[in-house]
């Protein structure tokens, strides 16, 4: 039995005792939204485990509830059913142990400089005093290569630089888990590629735990080590696959192409198993 088959077995109900205790456990999470007088179900009984050091990707077309799942893990949305646990403790609301990097650039308060932005959560959560917060902020600003812009206001920065600030701000908090909600989706393709590279370098160095939401198959393969595929309306788990073997430099390789097509097939060709996978590429590099 190949290691992958063993892992698959574990997912479909084999013995998971060989695995360590997961950091984030989502169990049968159902999310619902009130839309006028109706209540719409966004996800239906979604379960997955994120382990320490994972780069866990939620992938699916729009409407599969991947962003909502991330916001539920962050504590912004209370699930209608099921449970969310972080390190064994139930998640009850937003907290600085789970820091979110959003897609939108307006996540940075425009009235704070880069330095103040990175200091903001450290001070707001009461974790550090002003002096230590400043030191730590400068350290992380340097890590993302923005030392020169420490005193600049966000509106003077490019989109990629703003996301770097958001990432530095999140990492400075040293959260248990970093939640990224399509953080590079609003960037141009060249910048996006560079940011994926930098994120990977940071992970190589720091080995943080990451939950990453994207709708790009290539980005999922490049960024993640494990991918949860979700199907839409309502969001349900379609598959959970490994992608630790792929990095930025495997894009274009035969294995990579096959994985892309397999995911595409899983997401879009439901039911019709014999149809040939289309040779369509999604936009991300």
């Amino acid at each position, binding site marked *: 039995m190949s290691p992958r088959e063993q892992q698959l077995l574990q997912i479909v109900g084999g013995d998971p005792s060989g695995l360590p205790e997961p950091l984030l456990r989502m169990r049968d999470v159902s999310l619902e939204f009130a839309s006028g007088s109706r209540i719409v179900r966004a996800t239906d009984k979604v379960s997955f485990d994120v382990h320490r050091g994972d780069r866990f990707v939620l992938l699916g077309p729009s409407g599969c509830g991947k962003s909502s799942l991330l916001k539920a893990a962050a504590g912004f949305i209370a699930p209608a059913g099921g449970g969310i646990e972080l390190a064994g403790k139930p998640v009850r609301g937003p907290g600085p142990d789970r820091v979110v990097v959003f897609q939108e650039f307006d*996540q940075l*308060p*425009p009235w704070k400089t880069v330095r103040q932005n990175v200091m903001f959560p450290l001070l707001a959560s009461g974790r550090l005093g002003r002096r230590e917060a400043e030191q730590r902020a400068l350290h992380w600003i340097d890590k993302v290569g923005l030392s020169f812009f420490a005193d600049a206001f*966000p509106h003077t920065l490019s989109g990629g630089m703003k996301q770097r600030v958001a990432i530095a701000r999140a990492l400075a908090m040293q959260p248990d888990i970093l939640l990224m909600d399509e953080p590079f989706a609003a960037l141009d393709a060249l910048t996006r590629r560079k940011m994926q590279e930098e994120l990977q370098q940071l992970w190589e160095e720091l080995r943080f735990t990451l939950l990453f939401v994207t709708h790009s198959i290539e980005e999922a393969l490049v960024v993640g080590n494990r991918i949860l595929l979700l199907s839409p309306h309502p969001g349900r788990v379609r598959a959970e696959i490994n992608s630790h073997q792929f990095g930025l430099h495997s894009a274009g390789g035969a294995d990579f192409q096959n994985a892309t097509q397999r995911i595409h097939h899983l997401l879009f060709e439901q039911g019709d198993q014999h149809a040939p996978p289309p040779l369509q590429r999604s936009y991300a590099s």
Partner: protein
Amino acid sequence: MTMLLEPPIRAEYERDTAAVQGGTLARTAPLASRIAGQSWLRKGLVLALLALLWEGLGRWQDNDLLLPTFTQTAAALWQGLASGELLAHVAVSLSVLLQGYLAGIALAFVLTALAVSTRIGRDLLETLTSMFNPLPAIALLPLALLWFGLGRGSLIFVIVHSVLWPLALNTYAGFRGVPETLRMAGRNYGLGGLRLVLQVLVPAALPSILSGLKIGWAFAWRTLIAAELVFGATSGKGGLGWYIFQNRNELYTDKVFAGLALVILIGLVVENLVFRTLERVTVLRWGMQR
């Protein structure tokens, strides 16, 4: 018959982009455009033109009782200021104005902070503003006189009324316009309640709050001058409105104009020094407003 358009094939080339040709990357703008870029100069020009128009109109009318000229008004203004008479009136008006204004701001803040944190607070604010915002402050003056007597209390009451509702309306609209992402970022770091309002909502809504403060300031002035015209002196000392009213009774039209001009001048100073400075060090610097 159509010709197929074929673009020409050209030679390729590559270049080193090591050095920028011709020196520095930034240079200073030419003097003329720097002068034209000074807004106080452009506004000064507008004021000078208006004064010139007024002077011409006044001389052409040639009737001191109806329309004193710009120079006559300026002379009356200078005289009033030099003798200290006008300054005393201004001091009375401004002190009442500031008290009412600050009280209005405090109340508006309490109401809007309640409105963004609780549902009943929102209903309260929405109902109260739709009830009282259209109500002219002067219409409340008779009631205020009944309740607080002839004096400072009544004036402050009507000023608070005129500041509170437009400021609350603007602030609340600003709070609601704060991007959800920013709000979530704040909550993510453990901010909630009053701390979220003070550290995230207020700065994020500052453009709306500032415009509310400006409207409130203007409304407060209007209400104060009008109220002073109606019942005159407060406890023996009259404000600017009283000064205008008295001089009209005695047909010193140039002094009436001087009083009005002073109201305008104070408005201009507050707008250009206070509010403009506030904007420059906040929303303009942060790129939230252009």
